[in-house]
Structure formats: C-alpha cells, structure tokens
C-alpha cells in the first residue's frame, strides 16, 4: 500500500475513534448533567447593573437595578459584558482533517446559567471569540468551564490571561497558580479597565503549554480615544483619517481598514495523542498546521458568514482573514504570535509597510523619537505582537499576499500551497 493510502486509512481509523469517543462522551456527559447533584454548578454570571442577562448586557431592561434610587436604572455605557465557555471540540484544517482542540466559545448572556455546559459542549472555537474594546471601556468577562466531552478524565480549570495588560492585578491576570480559576460547571468573572490602547491577545494560562497548543487563544485589542477625531496625515496631503492604531497626536497611525491576524501552530501529533489520552509530547513539538486565526490557506480567505464547518461539531471557525481595501486606503494589520514552539517571519508582498508599534506600544521613544520603520516583514516569537500599516496609495489594484517566510509553514500538514498565508485584495477606487 502506498504511503498516501496508508495515511488515508490511518485518518479514517482516527476518525472512527473520534466519532465513537464523541458519542460515548456525549452520552456520559449528558448523563452527568441529568444526575441530581452531579456536576453541581454554582454559577454566578456577573454583568454591570444587569441581572436580567439581556443579550446586550450593557442596556437597561426588566430586572436592572436602580442602585442609588434616582429613578434611573444604573447603566454604564462604558461597560461591556461577555460570556465565554472553555471546553473542547473539533475544527477542520484546510487539508480536510478534523482535529481535536480545547477552546473558548461565545455564549449569549440571556442563556440560563444551568444550560451553559450543554451549550458549550464541543463548542470550542478557533480562534476564541474576538474581544475588541474602545479605550475607557470596562470589560466584565465571564469565563465558564464546560468540561471536556471527549476527555472525561480531565478535570482542568481554565483561565483568561489578557496578555500584555499593563499594571495588572494578580486575581485578574489569569494565572491559575496564583489566582482563582473556575472548576468544571462554574463561572469566574474577570474585570478590566481598558485604558491603554493597543494590540494584545488573550489565552488560557492553565497548564499553559498544553491549553495554548490545544487552541485556547483569541484576538484582543483596544481602540484609542483618538478615534472619531479628524486628522490629516501628513499635513497638507489631503489624506484624512478618523481611525487610528494609537493616540499618536498627529494621525500617523491613521487607517481605513483593519485586520487582526493571529498566528498559532497546531501540532497534529500533539492533538491526536492528547485526544487519545496519552502524555503530552512537548518535546520536539512541531507545527503541522500553521494558522492565521484558526485556519490555513485557502480557508483563510473563505468569507462565508458561518465559517468553516467540521463534521463533528459544526461551524466553529467563524473568522476569516481576507483583507479587502480600496486603492488609497491604509491598512492596519494587528499581528500577534501565540505559537508554543516557533518564531515566524510574516512578510507582506507588494505593499509598502511601516511598523508602527510593538507589544501594544507605539514605537516612540521616551522623549518623542520616532522609532517606527519601513520593512517588508516582521519576525516574532510566541508572545509578541506588532502593528503595521500598509499604504496602498501607490500600488496597483490586485491581490497581495501576507505569508510566512518560514517556507515550511506554507503547508497544511502534507498538503502543499497552504498554511500561514492570506490575501489582501485591493480594488480600484
């Protein structure tokens, strides 16, 4: 039998295993939920002034409280409430392989808390739900723990680490060794005051090398207060912006189109042996599936609204990475690397690029020196983030590629011409 045939046979066998385990798991899981006293949930969803859990947690509704008795329901327009569940699931890689993962999934705030576990079962998303905030907003981030439908032997907690949050407290830093973390069936609420704009990201920090490799990461950024003001940059150029990467004062980080591109490497071997209840193979972990926002090329440019579907858990990869702009636009790329095992060089082919920020800080010295620079690429390791601005003023309409210059990243496992790549499509004005 040829090697590819063998590989396909192995894949079919693995898929049978997965399907069987999933059925078994679902049965046991729902049984646990049905048993009185089992997996007793002590949930406590916390949203600001909003105990009715209306879908938009920050708007008044029946059940909201007038704390100070002034006749007006207390609603803080700056408060954002989110609910995510941590659990397991499956996603489809661009070569068609359905891979097991841990991940976060979004939950509507109106969902009764006792339904969280069944709602979150096999719902892991790649990547985690986006968290995009405006400077000055507060975020109540409720994290529930669904449990692990396929790995019923695992009783791990989860956390949220807002990576790079400056001046953080310990209790909301999301490191389980030094703070509380929700057990299965429970909820813990993180709170953040987003006062420093920039590109961050978030991930689970519970047994971090394992939970991150398995997929518990997501995009997170804070838009600056300068947004909404009109600035011309450069002065006299006639180019005006009202959206900016940072509070730059003069509009130099102004942009028309933005996209967050998050890099993670899925190690197929790691995911497969983990699903099959084997010890974690951290040593020599390699990237089989280098991904932008949970997908390899060409899935990165699939803009269908529901996203990519897998045969086990449905549509769990909702975020595409296709960037569309009109000639003359400036494009802000918010790049982050959350790989557990590799550095990456991400290159932009054909559009002039300026690196304006690193690690959520404008590249500007303590006395105002401009440290931004022109480049075609950035090289970063896990845990680093860059903001780059692409200027399409002087380029022809067409398709431009953003891709990894670590050339073996351009594969979806054994399938060539894929991997860490996406497209920027510039149309004529």
């Amino acid at each position: 039998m040829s090697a590819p045939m063998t590989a396909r046979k192995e894949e079919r066998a693995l898929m049978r295993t997965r399907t069987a385990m999933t059925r078994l798991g679902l049965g046991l899981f729902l049984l646990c939920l049905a048993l009185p006293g089992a997996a007793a949930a002590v949930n406590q969803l916390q949203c600001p002034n909003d105990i009715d859990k209306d879908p938009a947690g920050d708007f008044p509704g029946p059940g909201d409280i007038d704390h100070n008795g002034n006749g007006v329901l207390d609603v803080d327009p700056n408060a954002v409430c989110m609910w995510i569940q941590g659990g397991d699931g499956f996603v489809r890689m661009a070569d068609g392989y359905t891979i097991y993962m841990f991940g976060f999934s979004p939950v509507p705030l109106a969902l009764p808390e006792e339904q969280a576990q069944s709602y979150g079962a096999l719902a892991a998303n790649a990547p985690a739900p986006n968290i995009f905030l405006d400077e000055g907003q507060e975020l109540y981030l409720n994290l529930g723990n669904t449990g692990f439908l396929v790995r019923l032997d695992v009783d791990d907690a989860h956390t949220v680490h807002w990576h790079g949050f400056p001046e953080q407290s310990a209790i909301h830093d999301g490191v389980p060794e030094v703070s509380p973390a929700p057990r299965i069936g429970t909820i813990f609420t993180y709170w953040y005051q987003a006062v420093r704009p920039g590109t961050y990201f978030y991930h689970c920090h519970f047994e971090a090398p394992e939970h991150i490799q398995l997929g518990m990461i997501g995009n997170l950024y804070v838009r600056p207060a300068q947004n909404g003001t009109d600035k011309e940059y450069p002065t006299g150029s006639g180019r005006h912006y009202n959206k900016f990467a940072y509070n730059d004062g003069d509009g130099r980080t102004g942009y028309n189109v933005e996209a967050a591109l998050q890099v993670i490497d899925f190690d197929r071997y790691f995911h497969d042996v983990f699903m099959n209840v084997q010890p974690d193979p951290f040593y020599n972990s390699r990237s089989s599936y280098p991904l932008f926002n949970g997908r390899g090329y060409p899935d990165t440019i699939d803009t269908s609204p529901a996203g990519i579907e897998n045969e086990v858990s449905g549509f769990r990869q909702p975020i595409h990475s296709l960037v569309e702009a009109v000639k003359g636009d400036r494009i802000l790329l918010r790049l982050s690397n959350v790989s557990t095992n590799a550095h990456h060089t991400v290159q932009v082919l054909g559009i002039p690029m300026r690196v304006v920020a690193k690690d959520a800080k404008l590249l500007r010295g303590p006395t105002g020196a401009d440290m931004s620079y022109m480049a075609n690429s950035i090289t970063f390791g896990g845990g680093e983030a860059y903001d780059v601005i692409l200027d399409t003023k002087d380029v022809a309409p067409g398709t431009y590629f953003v891709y990894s210059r670590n050339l073996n990243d351009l594969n979806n496992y054994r399938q060539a011409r894929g991997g860490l790549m996406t497209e920027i499509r510039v149309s004529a004005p």
Partner: protein
Amino acid sequence: MDRQAFRFARAALIVAVLAAAGGAAPASAAISGITGTTFNFTARDGFLANPDGSYIYFWGLADDGGTGEVQLPGPTLILSQGTMVTINLTNMLPEPVSLVFPGQEGPTQPVYDANGRLRSLAQEAAPSGGTRTYTFTAGAPGTYYYQSGTHLDKQIPLGLYGAIIVRPPIAGQAYADAATAYDREYLLLLADLDHRLSTAAESGLSFDSTDWIAGYWFINGRSATDTMSEDNVPWLPNQPYGAMVSMHPGETILLRVLNMGRDPHPFHTHGNHVLAVGRDGRLLSTGGAAGADLAEFHFTVPAGSGQTWDGLFTWSADNLGWDVYGHAPGDPMQVGEYAPDHGKAIPTQTPYLTSLQYGDLYSGSPLLGQTGPLPPDHPGLNQTGAFFYMWHSHRENEMTNLNDFPGGMMTMLAIEAPWVPIP
C-alpha cells in the same frame, strides 16, 4: 495535576517559611556574584539537579576562591567600569577549553591546527590540569558574559559560560544616564540544553549539534520550579543562583536578561511592560546627551541567542480601576499607591469557595498584603498577600522539563505590600 501542585507547593513553601520567620520573601535584592580584579576558575564536570528528578551532566566553572563547587552558570563577575581583569583558568575537563568575552574590545588570539584549520577562538588550557590566563578591561557599563571559545556548539550548551556585570561609577544606575536608575536589580540568565548532548558528553561520545532539539531550559542555571528557591540552597550545590524576583509597588527594578542559549527565547513579563534601555551592553540612544531616547517597551522581551537586554520594570496598579489595598475613601494613602483609584472597590465578587480552584500562591484575597478564606485543602503558601506574576518564555513549550509541565524557563515576580520587608 497532583505533581504540578506538589512542585508549586515545594517552591512556594520557602515563601511561606520565610514569611513566617520574618516577613521576608525569598529573593535577595542584590545580584549574587564575585567582585575583584583577579579570579581563579577551574573548569570541571558535574551534575545538575532537575525538578523532574533527573540529574543532568554538565561542564561548568568553579570559583576556586569560593566554594570550589562547579556551577551553572559560572560565577557572575560584578565589575567596576575600567577594571583590568585577570582570570586564571585551570582545566580539569577531558578536552581543551578557553574563554572569550563578547562585548569587550580586543582580539581573541585564535589557535589553528597543523593543517591551518581553526581549533579555538582563543588560547586554550590543556585538558586534565592545563592552565591559561585571560585578561580584559571591563569596558562600557552593561550586561555581558563570558563563554567558551573552543568547540562552541558543544562547550557552551554544556555550561561553560557566566554573566559579567559592568557597573558605571554612579551607584544604582545601569548606565551613566540617570534615567537608568533603579531600586533593585535582578539577573535572569536564560539557557537551553539538548539532553542528548549532555548524555553523549558524559559517555565521551560525539553529538551532531545540527540535530539540536532542546529538552531542558534554565533561568540562572535552574529549571522551574527550582528557579523560585533562594540563592545557595544546600540541595542545589551546583546551581547557586535563584531567579525569584521581588519588589514593592512604586519601585523600579532593573532586569538584566541574558540569553546564553542556542535558541531565541521570547521572555514574557506578566504584570507590566519592560522598558528596555540597553542591549548588548549599550544604551539605546541616538548618542551624546540624548540619554536613553530609543528605549522601547516590550511585554515580551525578544531575547535572541547571545543577546543581553537591560530593562526597567515598575508596578503601582496605575489605572487598574480599583484600590488594591481595599481602602475606604477616607483612609490614609499607602506609600506608592495610585491615588485616583483610592477607595474604589473591586467591581467583581469572588464566587463560593467550592466553585473555584485556588492556586497555591493565591492568598485568599484579591487585595495586596491581605489574606482571606481558602478551601481546607489549600496549602496557604502566600502568607504575606503578595501579588505573584509568572515570568516565562512564551515559546510555551519551554515551560517544561522534558515533557513535564511546569518546569523550564519560568519564574515568578512577587510584588509585596509596602510593609512586608524584602531583604
């Protein structure tokens, strides 16, 4: 999980014991090392104790004027700018070794074999008792290192290296620039090792370093969670330097991050950004009177192989949005407190004890310097109510000891309440 809890407990126990003894945290504010002008080193082999239970064969340097124990990393040299330094090296290893001093000026006196092939970057000390003397002048202030100049891809990963700190004439500053002043300083020397190289060297076998895959990672010669133990603990006789970092709110600490490994290590500091003011022993400056005008912030310090970074780190709960001391609005201010949040309560509540898992280093209270209720099975290791922050390689795989989490390149920062003394 059980083993993980045990390991954190073991490291954290020291925090608790010291706290009970005198309210002290395990870190010392000064960098351990040796000073002077003449140093006598012996290159020897030995074994590193790893938290995963293994003993790892290594080559290191011993300070003959100190304990005489071979150690990883080699003795840290703390020098005043302009010092003429002499190192007398005795080699007890089975092959020639030498020392070079990257960042210090001057040629290295290479050695070639009979066929004209380079054998060593610097003059060697012969095996099994040979000696050689090296001299250099400690140049500009900053963080540097020494390392083997012979068979680099074998001898450096095996452990023939150590840090050099060159101090400017003004005490309490990293550089001549006053903007680099600090209250405390810490050295975090990062390193990696392919254990197969170690095994081969122990058996006198060769190892193909093109096949390098690191399996162990170190900070100051120790893998987590031993990184959090004190300097000179008796159970780590060949790894004398701890890597625990402690500070009070409002203080500025200087971090000397030095990557002696083969691989780049993105080093992530929870809690706040690092303001990098120097790299490879040079102020990040356009020059002259401009000072550190090219200083840059990182939440992950991109420590490339052989690079050194000098960075400043502060923390005061600035703009956190709630009062970490739990003050009522009329209470007096704490030293170093962020005033605008004075008296503001934490906006969230902590659910019932039974619904949460509590880390061994959680005090039971979200407030700084306070403790609170914890489940009966909790070890209660954080007696001072410190805020702990994990500092680690964000190539997360490197937080393991050969497949075992937690481990590797990871340590903690403890922010202690102002009234808790830090030695």
